[in-house]
């Protein structure tokens, strides 16, 4: 892991300060409080980053995720519920392939639009992030920032990637481009930090409200010199100075409501109040799994592990070799994940056929599978069926 402090970089760079403030008090432990960052196995977007005549194939993975409440919805008996789509005319539950996008041209009259038609609209922009210009990062007003993604290079493009990352960081500039990702166009700033490129999507100019639009330009600036002021700018400045701190305590950005909900649930659990217990039979778990959509746990991998594997161009090793070389983590170790990854060596065992691995996994009970999943810190394991655990274990990437 590159030593971030060695970078010849101004300390005005937010990510460095964050790394220091946050890294030392790691709230990112593998606990139920802070669910691990997971992402879909496939990249969010695949294409090329174009810099002059240099094109480098990259994959984008989300670096931030949406808000997810800690509560699940259940019915009267405590059985978990799932979200589904219902046909409003026939009142039947629909599969994803039975659903199409429509645009209402007149009341109740729709034109259907296929994914392939949308994908064909801007074929170049859908596969390229062509950097047009490079701006000083500080010039970008924070109001424009939307979402954040990591760029992982294709194995053959590592040299070009490193070159671009290093040059952009040294020049302290961000590359600006527009591109199309998942049926939407984005203005994007490509930022380099610690050798890693990130895509920060920006809002378009017409998507941001101007101060005039909320009546702000009408304010009379002369009023600041009014002697009846409750407080003068100087007073306020002194106040700001007195309330200044150097570093953000990231604890202040934790989800307080989620913590309260958890506490209340635990209090009720102890008193055995409103607790619903289900016998963990194979059938009930499998049935539950069958109703789960593609977005559920077995499709997710730990983002951290995957990014590391992708960025450092490593092969995904088989479950067998990964399992035998993983020591059990010692309890109570902070940053268990990192220590765990450092202890694993690339296996010297020959790569086995996927079929053989699966048959071995198939012979294990759910409890045994769960134990393995626990040792490998597979996210979402407590909600996985036996089959999902088998799949997840069979596809574990190597840890370096």
């Amino acid at each position, binding site marked *: *892991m*590159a030593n971030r402090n060695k970078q010849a970089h101004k300390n005005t760079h937010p990510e460095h300060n*964050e*790394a220091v403030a946050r*890294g030392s008090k*790691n709230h990112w432990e593998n606990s139920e409080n802070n669910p691990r960052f997971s992402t879909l196995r496939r990249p969010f977007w695949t294409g090329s980053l174009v*810099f*002059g*005549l*240099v094109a*480098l194939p990259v994959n984008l993975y989300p670096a931030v995720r949406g808000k997810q409440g800690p*509560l699940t*919805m259940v*019915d009267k008996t*405590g*059985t978990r*519920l799932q979200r*589904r*789509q219902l046909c409003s005319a026939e009142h039947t*539950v629909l599969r994803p392939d039975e*659903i*199409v996008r429509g645009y209402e*041209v007149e009341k109740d009259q*729709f034109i259907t*639009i296929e994914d392939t038609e949308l994908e064909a609209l801007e074929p170049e922009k859908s*596969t390229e992030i062509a950097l047009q210009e490079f701006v*000083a990062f500080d010039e*970008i*007003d*924070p*109001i424009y920032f939307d979402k954040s993604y990591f760029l992982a290079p294709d194995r053959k493009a590592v040299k070009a990637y490193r*070159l671009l*990352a290093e040059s952009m960081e*040294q020049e302290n*500039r961000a590359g600006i481009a*527009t591109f199309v990702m998942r049926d*939407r*166009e984005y203005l994007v700033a490509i930022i380099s930090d*610690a050798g*890693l490129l990130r895509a920060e999507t920006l809002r378009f100019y017409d998507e941001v*409200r101007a101060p005039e*639009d*909320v009546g702000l330009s009408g304010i009379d600036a002369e009023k600041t010199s009014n002697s009846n002021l*409750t407080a003068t*700018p100087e007073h306020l400045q002194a*106040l700001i100075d007195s*309330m200044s701190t150097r570093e*953000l305590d990231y604890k202040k*950005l*934790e989800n307080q*409501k989620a913590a309260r*909900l958890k506490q209340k649930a635990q209090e009720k659990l102890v008193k055995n109040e*409103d*607790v*619903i217990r*289900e016998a963990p039979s194979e059938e009930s778990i499998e049935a539950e799994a069958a*109703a789960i959509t593609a977005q559920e746990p077995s499709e997710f991998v730990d983002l*951290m592990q995957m990014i*590391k594997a992708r960025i*450092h161009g490593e092969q995904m090793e088989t479950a067998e070799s990964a399992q035998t070389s993983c020591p059990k983590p010692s309890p109570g170790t902070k940053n268990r994940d990192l220590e765990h990854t450092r202890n694993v060596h690339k296996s010297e065992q020959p790569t086995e056929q996927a079929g053989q691995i699966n048959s071995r996994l198939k012979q294990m009970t759910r409890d045994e599978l769960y134990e393995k999943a626990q040792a490998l810190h597979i996210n979402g394991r407590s909600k996985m069926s036996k089959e999902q655990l088998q799949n997840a274990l069979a596809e574990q990437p190597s840890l370096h």
Partner: protein
Amino acid sequence: MSARAIWKGVLNISDLQVPVKLYSALVDRSVHFRLLHRRDQAPVQQIMVNAKTGDPVPFEETQKAYQVSNEECVILTHSELEELGPEKSRAIEVSEFLPKASLGYRWYDRPYLLSPDGDEPLYLALAHALGKSQKLGLAHWVMRNKEYAGALTLHKGYPMLITLRYAEQVMPLSQLSGPQGEPLPEKERLMARQLINMLGAKFQPERYHDEYRDRVIELISKKRQGEEIEQVQVKQHKPPADLNRALQESLQRARA
């Protein structure tokens, strides 16, 4: 055209109270689609179904639960949830001021423009002071029954609140770094930096437009009129075989 305020609050900065109105700073320009059933083009409705049986469950019969483990959950009743909910308040508590560099942009979620709600001179004094200090305030407030943390900063000289993501939403970067390798050739490093410099510019967001949105509207209009939709081939990009050459040619092009 003036937008309407979505909420009114009071910035509490120590003993100081600055009443403000909040406006969403975002304008939705996207083309809105509806999900339809392919067969009859009937619009689709969201429902909750029993995960085991697949049977729909009416909303009145649904409950919220905290999943303690795979087999155990604790039901939290409506009244309990209400009690646990945040208290209604107009207060926007500003607890401290931080250097701008202490918070990366990945934490920023939604922006709200602030206008004065009665005390204009005080509002302006705050704007001036924020501008001079080059700091941002850390604020917490409750709006529409949700708790928010936000950064109090300026946009074009006017106070703005940008809500912040929760710690659990933002990937910590300290554990990640870029790919390693042999030291890069000096010549190529120089060329890359030169190219970046040549393409250096001021950030002018007004120069960029969402063209895709226009194409979507065009597509809809064509389909409405029953026109043919042409398929376009996409060319594949390969990484440069000769990075050095590619950089040189890029520089030549940029100079021209």
